[in-house]
Each structure stands twice: as C-alpha cells, then as structure tokens.
C-alpha cells in the first residue's frame, strides 16, 4: 500500500476528504506507476498532474520522496523502499504562490 499526498486543489476536484490517499500500485513503486494508480482511482485527475499527450509532469508541480525532490529523476526509477512500503508518503506538491 502506497501513500500519496495530493495538493488541496486536486483533492477538491476528486472529492477526497483525507489529506492522503492509499493506493495499491502494480509493480515497483516509481513515479509512473504511482501516477498511473492515482489516475486509475481518480480519472478526473487525468491531465492535471501530467500532460494528456506528452505524459510529462506539469511544470508547476513537483514530486518528493523521503524529503528529496525526485521531479527530475527518471519516471521509471525505483523510489525508496520507505515509499514502496508505505512508511513514507509520496508527495505531489504545487508551486508556492503568494501575494
């Protein structure tokens, strides 16, 4: 079971009340397999985390695992065991906006 923390706007869009969601992920825990699992559970989030066509991460989002920014790692690189085991959550974070 993998834990994923989504930005509030996406939780509103998908009617998710809890701060984090728990997902079964097929195969090794990677950025791609986690986002695949998020989109499978919440199809309304398709296109909001990665582009519909290019499948690339949207530019104002970042992915964090175990306090490390993994946004620029390969989407198929294995994530730390603590993510795979659910000990640590996988963070999807929107760029900070102030004003």
């Amino acid at each position: 079971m993998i834990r994923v923390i989504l930005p509030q706007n996406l939780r509103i869009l998908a009617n998710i009340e809890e701060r984090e969601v728990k997902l079964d992920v097929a195969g090794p825990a990677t950025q791609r397999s986690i986002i695949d699992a998020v989109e499978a559970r919440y199809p309304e989030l398709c296109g909001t985390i990665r582009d519909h066509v290019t499948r690339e991460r949207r530019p104002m989002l970042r992915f964090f695992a175990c306090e490390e920014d993994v946004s620029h790692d390969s989407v198929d690189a294995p994530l730390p065991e603590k993510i795979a085991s659910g000990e640590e959550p996988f963070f999807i974070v929107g760029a900070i906006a102030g004003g």
Partner: protein
Amino acid sequence: MSAVRVLVGTRKGAFVLTSDGKRQKWEVSGPHFAGWEIYHVKGSSVDPNRIYASQSSSWFGQVIQRSSDGGKTWETPGGGVQKSAEGMPKGESNKFVYIGNPGTHQWYDGTPHPWEFKRVWHLEPSLSDPDTVYAGVEDAAIFRTTDGAQSWTELPGLRDAQGPKWQPGAGGMCLHTILLDPSNPDRIFIAISAAGAFRTDDGGKSWKPITRGLRSDFMPNPTAEIGHCVHRIALNKARPDVLFMQKHWDVMRSDDAGDNWREVSGNLPTDFGFCIDVHAHEPETVYVVPIKSDSEHYPPEGKLRVYRSRTGGNDWEPLTKGLPQSDCYVNVLRDAMAVDSLDKCGVYFGTTGGQVYVSADSGDNWSPIVRDLPAVLSVEVQTLP
C-alpha cells in the same frame, strides 16, 4: 413566475445567483470548484438545467465540469472509471488535442511559436442539442463535443484561416467569442485576440476572416486582414446579421454578418473596453463599459458607467444610477456582461473588484447582487420559466 439564474466565473471559483423575475432578492450559492479559475459557465438553451463550466489552473491544467440539475451538483463528464485499450483511464473530458501538427503562430516579437493548449476561455452550448457544445481555447482554436463534454474534437479548418499569422494579445492567444446564428445552424462567428474575427458558413469546416473596415493603428498595416485585437462581438438573436464589436480600441458595427464593419464609437468618452452586449428585445440597443485606455484598465474619472445606445451606436448615454461615481478603478472583462430575456430586459455585469451588478430595467437603475466575490471573469444569465 419567471426566474433568472446568473452564472458567474471568478478567479477563485464559480457562483450561481438566483432570483425571481423581479430581480430584487437574490440567493447566492458557491464557491463551486473553490480555488480554481473559472473562465466561463454557460447553460444550454435547450435544457437549462444542463450547465457547463470551464475550470482551469496554471498548476493543474484544464477541467470541464457539467451540471444536470441547474448548478446544484457537478460532475466531470466521463469521470467514471473508463479504460482505454491499454487499460489506463481515459479522462477524455479534460483532453483538448489539436488535430495534426498545428505548427506555429507568431509570438509577441513576431518569431514563430509552437501552438500549445492552455485553457478553455469560452463554452457555447448548441442551440438545438444539450450534449453539443463548442469550446474556444487558448492557443486559439475551436473544439466541439457531441457527447455532453465527455470528449472533444477540434474543428481544424479554423487554423487554416492564416493561423501562422495569428499572434497573442496581452492575455494570451485566446478564442474568446463564439456566436451561433439562430437562423442558420451552419453559421458561426468567432473572435480571437489578437487575430481578428472569423465566420464559417459550412458548420465549421472552413472559415474566413471578417475584418474589412477594422483599423488597428498598432499594426504595421492598420487595415490588414489578420491581427486585429477583437475583444468581443455580440448580436441580437432576432437579427443575427447585425453584429456589434468592442475592439481593442473602437466600437464597430456590421450589417452584413461581418463582411463589412463601420465605427460607431460616436460620443463615447473612450472607445477602449472589453465587453459589449445587445438588448434582448431591442436590436438597436447596445451596451458597453468604456475603459480609460489599453494601459489603464479602469473607468475614466473613476466613474463606473455603462453606456447605452438606442440607435445602434454613435449616440451613447451614460447609465450611472446605482453605480459608483467616484474612486472606482475596476475593470469589466470581455465575457462579464449578459442580458436576460424577461419582458423588461435585465442587464448584468461583473467586475474585477468582485461586484456583480444587475439592472432590471434595461440599464436605467443598477444595484449590486454581490459586492465581494473574487475577480469576476465571466457572467452569463439564464431566463427560466
């Protein structure tokens, strides 16, 4: 008794304002889609309970929302778990993909720039089918759904109308106006900042620029066919060949479905502005909100005035009763004015300061429905039985 439902898109969500036909007491619901930019919300004239909303975000992209109960509840069309052949969810309802290789348009500095989808600015439901809707998008193109917004297909013939010459206005290269001709289902008018106005007479297969008579002094050739920053076009449904346009500068009129235009700015204090609309029952009565200039996006003298012409342009009168006449520095954006079709035509507009004003007597008197919403991007109104 009749009723009205005002659909308001703002920088931080959508709001639904409802009243009976007197338009004095209002109920406010929202924010719907809190925190998201709602560029446009519009209902079907065939089935008024069917409403579509464009929800977008610089972070998370484009989402299309649909209501089938007059805005009480919403869904992302096709939002259930759909599997493609590859086993992945489809999520088609939010997917706007240009057909073929769209190539390039001009960037601000005149260099070629790739076409990139950014957001939906305007949703125009069909006049005959609640499941058919047109979407005007940035970078400029027109899409259509025929399945209630579950999936969208571009009408690529529009980009054949000299698309590589189009360039963005300051707000982006947006297709912001879609007018369906109620007397001719094959005729559609659209406008793009800053490409101009276009018309199809074959249901969207082919398009032609309709800009003869426009003059834009910022262009190297001020009367060129392509490049005019059209802000908004409006028509009266009883007389769809007569169009009124608020351009970057100039208020214009066409009596031949856009083939030729002439200026009708007349005695306006400034002919810059964004919105324009036509009275529901008087085809020669037109409304604009003059804005000081293209670098000063607020009313002249800090006085918020709607100007009304009862002569189809040229002669304009300021409408001020109930509107702030000092220290007012809001803007009224291009999609933020609408009229209802009650016997005594109601006129509505929203401001970047978060006010939505109504006049239940064709503009003579105004009052705020709400004062403190987020910046208003769009206002539409439905007249209900």
